């Protein structure tokens, strides 16, 4: 129907497959997010460290430049598990800040504007809605965490020799799994916060506060009660433990790996529960 013909006609054209429709939300959310210049600048800043690491790997294997800069080859930091463990720490922290910046604006505007019934009166499920919103964070966080990490691993393998890559395959897989788990947990926390705290700034502050408060209270419990159980509410310590175990690095953490995975599981479960309570077409006013 041409635009000038202002009569109602139905739609009889083709329709799309149902399951990938969650990505429509991701696409539109990205469109809105990248209107913010601050976000684009912050995203670029998040890539400074990986670019620096890539430069370091290249330099440390280039005898010509090392000689020119008069740096003895043995004095440079080895590119090993410790190197990648620190990479996880730095990029994990950047991912955390990025989450606090982006996460709160994902679900709360829909709740504030009462848009939920509009999504769910269509052939579009709550799972698809959460998946669509989660993909926004997962893609952004992946861009600053495991993707550059994997690229560094590939660069190191290519300059050292592919045999090194095969021998240290667990570093590559550890990087991907460890940082993906971190991205996943951060995304769930951000979405749950965004679903419950409608005011964007407060939601961002809560995401930041959750980690600081967890770390603070965890340390306080450990000191006062002379125990290690306080670490169970410390998500940063939990992430360090998982990264160290996957990268086979001794970080000196006192938390057991099993406890760390349990904390991740419980946190994810709690976030899913919180999301399921809020992400629905309507609320019953009692």
């Amino acid at each position, binding site marked *: 129907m041409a635009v000038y013909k202002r009569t109602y006609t139905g739609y009889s054209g083709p329709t799309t497959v149902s399951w990938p429709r969650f990505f429509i939300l991701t696409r539109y959310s990205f469109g809105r997010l990248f209107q913010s210049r601050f976000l684009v600048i912050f995203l670029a800043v998040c890539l400074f460290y990986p670019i620096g690491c890539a430069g370091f790997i290249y330099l440390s294997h280039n005898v010509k430049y090392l000689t020119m800069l008069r740096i003895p080859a043995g004095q440079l930091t080895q590119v090993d598990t410790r190197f990648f463990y620190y990479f996880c720490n730095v990029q994990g922290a950047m991912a955390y800040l990025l989450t606090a910046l982006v996460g709160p604006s994902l679900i709360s505007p829909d709740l504030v504007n009462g848009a939920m019934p509009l999504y769910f009166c269509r*052939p579009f499920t709550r799972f698809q809605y959460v998946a669509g919103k989660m993909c926004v964070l997962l893609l952004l966080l992946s861009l600053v965490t495991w993707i550059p990490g994997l690229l560094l691993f590939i660069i190191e393998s290519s300059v050292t020799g592919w045999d090194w890559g095969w021998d240290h395959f667990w570093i590559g897989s550890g990087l991907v799994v460890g940082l993906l788990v971190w991205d996943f947990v951060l995304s769930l926390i951000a979405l749950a916060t965004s679903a419950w705290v409608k005011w964007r700034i407060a939601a961002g502050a809560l995401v930041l506060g959750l980690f600081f408060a967890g770390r603070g209270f965890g340390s306080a419990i450990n000191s006062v009660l002379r125990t290690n159980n306080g670490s169970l509410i410390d998500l940063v310590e939990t992430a360090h433990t998982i990264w160290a175990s996957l990268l086979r690095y001794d970080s000196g953490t006192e938390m057991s790996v099993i406890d760390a995975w349990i904390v991740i599981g419980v946190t994810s479960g709690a976030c899913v529960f919180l999301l399921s309570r809020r992400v629905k077409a309507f609320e019953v006013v009692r």
Partner: protein
Amino acid sequence: MADTAQVPVIELQGLGVRFGKRQILNDLNISLSGRMVGLLGPNGAGKSTLIQTLLGFCPVSSGTARVLGHDICADAKMVRSLVGYMPENDALIANMTAVSFVRMMGELSGLPSEAALERAHEVLFYVGLGEARYRKLGEYSLGMKQLAKLAQAIVHGPKLLILDEPSNGLDPPARQRMIRLIHEMKDSGEMHLLLCSHLLRDVEETCEEVLILKKGTIVHHANLEEERRANKRFVEIETSGNDEGLCDELERIGCDCATAGPGRYKMTLPAGFELKEIYRMAANRDLQLRRLNYRRDTLEDIFMKAMAD
């Protein structure tokens, strides 16, 4: 897909909905087939819950319901793809332009991206927001927001359009525009409409069939067209002059007559009765007939009667 021309639009079979210990809808049984159905009832009657149940938002505690032949529980996805919904409350994404918003809703309903964009432009022009389609929804007036909600509800060409208080908060010209759009969509023959409104005038102007709910049960179901035809048998007359014995004389020729004040009579005419009999009788008695009109039950009468039952 079921043949939508044959099957009832909405069919409820012992439908019950419960929130916790509160029974909101109780044993609803009805089959609605009209092109335009009105849903009426006082606050808390269960109108919105019925709509939300049909859309699959509320779990059914007993019975079942079918929309265009599809079970709302077993075939919820199909039901949602056939239905367009315009909610009562503000339900928009403030920082999106109207065209992106309607396009996104079209895509979520299953339209390919390009088709959704084309339809978004079309329906925004159709509802009268063509010139404002690149403005952010947060900047819209209440009337424009209502129209934007209507646009998102029809972007995918639904077979059933559910309108929950579409003229809420609209000024008279905006209300007229909304009623005109509803009429046009009804007359297009491409969709059925379910109109839930507190404004009896809106329902009376547009609907062929009404369903009245009270405390979660159906208290009245009426086909307005049929009721209007049936009510043609009720007549009121006003006379001037000596009307003594008029009532008896009218009853002798088969009318069921009652006095409604000095010189005023209400009567039910028998089948096949012609009005000229009344004129002839008045002429014979040298009686002036000042007024004669059909007394039709308005929707308000029907509604009040249903509420009183």
